[in-house]
């Protein structure tokens, strides 16, 4: 990709197990609090920890959108209601026109739990799924993007990006292209993934989930903790009058591993390529990055491969950490959630230390920080990688 025009992160919000909205999210990061708890989700019987968002089941969708009702869209609804986000989108639509705002939402499993539940309630004779079960507006990957566009009354191009755990980082790339092409003037980007049995039992079957809260970069790390989250942002073109404190998206870098469906490239070649490509798009040097928010899932192979990739570009001194010890791995929502955490890091001069980790693996050469650091943070690089060997790095920074 050529050098990109920076885009304004005009609004943003995030809801995960560490907070509903940005203020409690920031407070948890400052207080180094984790939202991970022992798994008691639904009827799941797995010895693991999860990052469950409080109050999702109690959410209600607007009456005219009841056909979208499922845990995933309830989580999206809960998140959209925070931080004045819905009002800000409405104001943007009034200013730019609803046709001029696109919707790009990342998800890995959307509302697949509706189908899981429907399979438990099949007709004993015919095997049919319950009549009330709706596929397109709950299970289908597009359902959450469609819900968000209808909820916000936006009429521009809309799409779900579903490339596993890189999904909601890659939405920034798709939105960037469409804004730059002039098809739209702004984009509602984000990610939503909710707890479900497919991912809890699936990662367990691959022996990739830890029984303890995940410990990224720890010498004893042994897997992920699955979390859920919804995070959204409004991306717009920058104008000359943009405030110095504003947060900009400077670069997007994407790549593929060409290696394996569920294991990262051992030397992190794909990850390295994504980070380098993001730096190129932003016209920045590695030394311009103050803090790296790692993908840092806490599996032995991910952290080893990512550490090598980071060190090969940034050397051993750029502070980096994973916030997944706090939030869990929120899968298709991780990119957007960590984009918001990156924005909070810049706005508040905070490099969030990686919690849950007690002894950093001495064989990992990246400069992993466990304690919070208060320092000026001008630019942050955030990594998201997924099954299928899909990688995406984002660079955010202060406008002034």
């Amino acid at each position, binding site marked *: 990709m050529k050098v990109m025009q920076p885009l304004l992160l005009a609004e943003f919000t995030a809801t995960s197990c560490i907070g509903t909205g940005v203020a409690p999210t920031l407070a948890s990061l400052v207080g180094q609090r984790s939202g991970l708890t022992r798994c008691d989700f639904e009827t799941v019987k797995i010895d693991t920890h999860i990052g469950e968002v409080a109050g999702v089941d109690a959410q209600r969708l607007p009456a005219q959108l009841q056909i979208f009702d499922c845990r995933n869209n309830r989580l999206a609804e809960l998140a959209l209601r925070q931080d004045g986000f819905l009002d800000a989108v409405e104001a943007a639509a009034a200013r730019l026109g609803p046709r001029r705002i696109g919707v790009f939402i990342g998800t890995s499993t959307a509302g697949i739990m509706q189908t899981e539940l429907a399979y438990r309630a099949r007709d004993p004779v015919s095997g049919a799924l319950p009549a009330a079960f709706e596929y397109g507006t709950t299970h289908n990957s597009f359902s959450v993007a469609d819900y968000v566009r209808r909820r916000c009354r936006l*009429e521009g191009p809309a799409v779900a990006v579903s*490339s596993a755990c890189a999904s909601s980082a890659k939405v920034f790339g*798709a939105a960037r*292209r*469409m804004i730059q092409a002039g098809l739209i003037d702004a984009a509602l980007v984000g990610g939503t993934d909710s707890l479900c049995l*497919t991912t809890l*039992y699936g990662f*367990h079957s691959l022996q990739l989930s830890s029984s303890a809260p995940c410990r990224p970069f720890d010498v004893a790390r042994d897997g992920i903790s699955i979390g859920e989250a919804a995070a959204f942002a409004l991306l717009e073109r920058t104008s000359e009058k943009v405030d110095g404190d504003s947060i900009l998206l400077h670069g997007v870098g994407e790549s593929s591993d060409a290696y394996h*469906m569920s294991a990262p490239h051992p030397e992190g070649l794909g990850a390295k390529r994504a980070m380098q490509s993001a730096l190129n798009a932003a016209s920045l040097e590695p030394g311009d990055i103050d803090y790296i928010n790692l993908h840092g899932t806490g599996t032995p192979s991910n952290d080893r491969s990512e550490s090598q990739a980071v060190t090969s570009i940034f050397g051993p001194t750029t502070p980096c950490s994973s916030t997944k010890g706090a939030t869990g791995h929120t899968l298709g929502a991780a990119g957007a959630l960590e984009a918001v955490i990156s924005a909070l890091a810049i706005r508040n001069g905070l490099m969030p230390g990686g919690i849950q980790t007690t002894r950093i693996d001495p064989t990992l050469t990246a400069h992993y920080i466990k304690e919070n650091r208060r320092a000026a943070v001008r630019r942050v690089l955030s990594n998201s990688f997924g099954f299928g060997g899909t990688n995406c790095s984002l660079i955010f920074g202060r406008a002034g």
Partner: protein
Amino acid sequence: MKLRGYIGGIGVLGPGLNDWPQTAAVLSGKKPYAAAPTVLPIPAMLPPAERRRTGRVVKVALAVALEASSSAGADPAQLPSVFSSSGGDGHICHEICQALALAEREVSPTRFSNSVHNVAAGYWSIATGSMRESNVLCAFDASFVAGLLDAMTQITVDQQSVLFVAYDTEYPPPLHAKRPIPDAVGVAMVLTPERTAGSIAGIEVALTEESADKMTDPELEALRAAVPAARSLPLLRLLAGGVAGRVVLDYLDVSRAAVQVQPCT
């Protein structure tokens, strides 16, 4: 900025549609359409161990991606890609949900890895050695135009050639009753920013509120209406005819895509 570029290679697979030359003959009226179950080739481009693990969604996507990139004379390892599908692998989804409904809840790790929506893009990258970026999209019934728009923005904004692959496969019962996609359909195109020796036609895409064009043949119209990737059939018919023209393709409730084509002869 206009979304404008060139089509440099096409791949097609569907019920009674075996490749682009045969599909073009059917769509231009030179051969009759004979509906038959989609024949999915074994992806010989994958290593044998990986080949065994691939389901129908990977087979259809890889087959059309390979046909399009080969006929364009493009090196697939150098092409960024856009994969757009209205659903993941329906058979895997069925197996997993069935397993989760039983007391043991034994999910196969391979099935879980292959349940991701980007499974075809992942195997394409492994098969071709491509480390280029790959965007994987879903817009339910609007998936073809959603993918086309993303691919067109890549060629216009970043001035780079891109492989665009749209594909759908059927869900088995009982999900089939809720999502009645009848069979596998795949359509792929290599899109380039500049005209090349192998360019088939110039293409320009814009949003419109006009209604989508339909197929005159009732069977092909039924296919168009039933499978999101087959929403491309009016465009393929125009390309098969080899004359300049304009078609409107189905997209979202509030908008459609107007596609203008100029053959490179």
